[in-house]
């Protein structure tokens, strides 16, 4: 049980308050977009985007431009190029994404090795620094979350139909290619904006784990999106509080809590499935 005095002390810190809000927003955003990403088998794509972000940061540092300004356009262009590559190359998407992310990681490390004066640690890039998040960062993430919610709510039917079958959606008048591209761009922007808080290595966990837990627990689509977003935001809050109390690294703490949430969802789904089988056979 957490010591109430220690908890109060942690919560009183302004940087911790910003980190908690940032974690809540980033986690909810990751869970929301993840709910479609995992159904469209884009989990590995988000991982590749995360790794490519390191290359974007490295190029920014190398060219003497603020990495934050480079990151979003870099991630969007990178995502669109990789999407074209996957569609046109006739090679399995997982193999191509593996090539892309390992190569971009290699280039990023080489680029960083050329920068002698880089003062940020590689650790910070890899695992994020959510405690260093500022109010402007929070405003950007909040606007992004509202935008993503509005877009997905208005196009929910289109998104679900094109996830099920591209031609079924197209015959229904859904501009399937446009929506696919729009989603990939949105995912790229979210990954780029979240990197500062979450880090290159852990960003895909924010997209994939809450959505997989939501997928196990939900039987209706809006509930699935809500569960994924709530799981993402809730796990981030618990993980950050745990990190603050134990002085352990924040990003990894959040991912460990997400994993615990996933295991819990797995157990609940197994119990539900067993109950349904027993009820059907009796």
């Amino acid at each position, binding site marked *: 049980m957490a010591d109430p005095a220690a908890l109060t002390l942690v919560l009183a810190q302004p940087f911790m308050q910003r980190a908690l809000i940032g974690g809540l927003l980033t986690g909810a955003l990751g869970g929301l977009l993840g709910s479609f990403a995992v159904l469209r088998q884009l989990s590995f794509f988000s991982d590749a985007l995360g790794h490519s972000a390191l290359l974007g940061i490295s190029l920014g540092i190398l060219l003497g431009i603020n990495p934050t300004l480079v990151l979003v356009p870099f991630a969007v262009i990178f995502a669109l190029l990789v999407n074209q590559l996957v569609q046109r190359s006739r090679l399995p998407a997982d193999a191509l994404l593996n090539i892309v992310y390992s190569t971009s990681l290699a280039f990023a490390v080489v680029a960083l090795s050329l920068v002698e004066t880089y003062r940020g640690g590689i650790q910070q890039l890899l695992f994020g620094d959510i405690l260093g998040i500022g109010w402007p960062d929070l405003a950007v993430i909040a606007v992004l979350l509202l935008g993503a919610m509005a877009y997905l*709510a208005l196009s929910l*039917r289109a998104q679900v139909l094109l996830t099920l079958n591209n*031609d079924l959606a197209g*015959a229904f008048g859904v501009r399937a290619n446009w929506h696919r591209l729009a989603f990939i761009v949105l995912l790229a922007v979210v990954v780029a904006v979240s990197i500062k808080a979450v880090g290159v290595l852990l960003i895909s966990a924010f997209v994939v784990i809450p959505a997989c837990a939501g997928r196990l627990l939900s039987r209706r*689509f809006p509930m699935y999106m809500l569960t994924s977003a709530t799981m993402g935001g809730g796990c981030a809050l618990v993980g950050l509080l745990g990190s603050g109390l134990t002085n352990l690294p924040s990003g990894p703490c959040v991912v460990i809590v997400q994993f615990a949430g996933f295991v819990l969802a797995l157990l609940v789904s197994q119990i539900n499935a067993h109950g349904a089988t027993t009820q059907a056979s009796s």
Partner: protein
Amino acid sequence: MSSSTAAPVLAVQGLTVERDGLLAVDAVSFQLARETDTALVGPNGAGKSTLVAALLGLLPRASGTVRIMGHALGPAGQLPRSVRAQIAYLPQSLALQGRFPLSVAEFVGFGFDPPGPRLPWAVGQRRHGAVQRALERTGCRDLGKRLLSELSGGQLKRVLLAFCVVRPRQLLVLDEAQAGLDAPSSEQFHQLLLELRRQEGWTVLQVSHDLEMVRRSCDQVLCLNRRLRCSGVPDYALSPARLAELYGPNVVPYRHQHSPSSGDAHG
């Protein structure tokens, strides 16, 4: 069937489609009269699915025109929303790998609203009633709360028909909708399709490899192998000479009968 002088539901003229730089469909012309059932047959790789995709506006045309209910299909597949709302398409399969958290009733409900953006909370009693009626008419009344990914192949096909019947439509396009079904399920699906077609007055275009089903129930057959090799009533288009021309000389015409009670197929 209505008079043949009525305007066709679908009119295709000189349709040519290229895929990956190759000619996939070459100068195909045909019409679908109102409330008729037309089969599109041909060997694998003949361009059947490509033709269907092009006339629904899902693939660009190299040349030719497509008119649906009197409206010309635009170069990028544009059609008025009111026309799109009259078209239903049944694919071979859905991407349902693993657990897909979408209930049958939700999916069928997606078919009720007309095309275009929709607020998620715009769910009315009218929609709920239409979904329940569609599920009942397709024998899926007890499946409404099930997940789409929990259904058997036969159940899923019936739910796809419920998606089509949940609102009035004129044109139904099926791309090998019976693929993957065993003989009894395929026969059940076929009978349900026939019944709904009669009730709804659908004009049907179906890609099929089941020549016996085509012979029994379709009004018109289009034989495609990149070009339209022949077309006409089943007895003409599926004659041994025409089939040999379409599939090659080694294809032996195969007649079998389905018993409604057992669903058995006999060679």
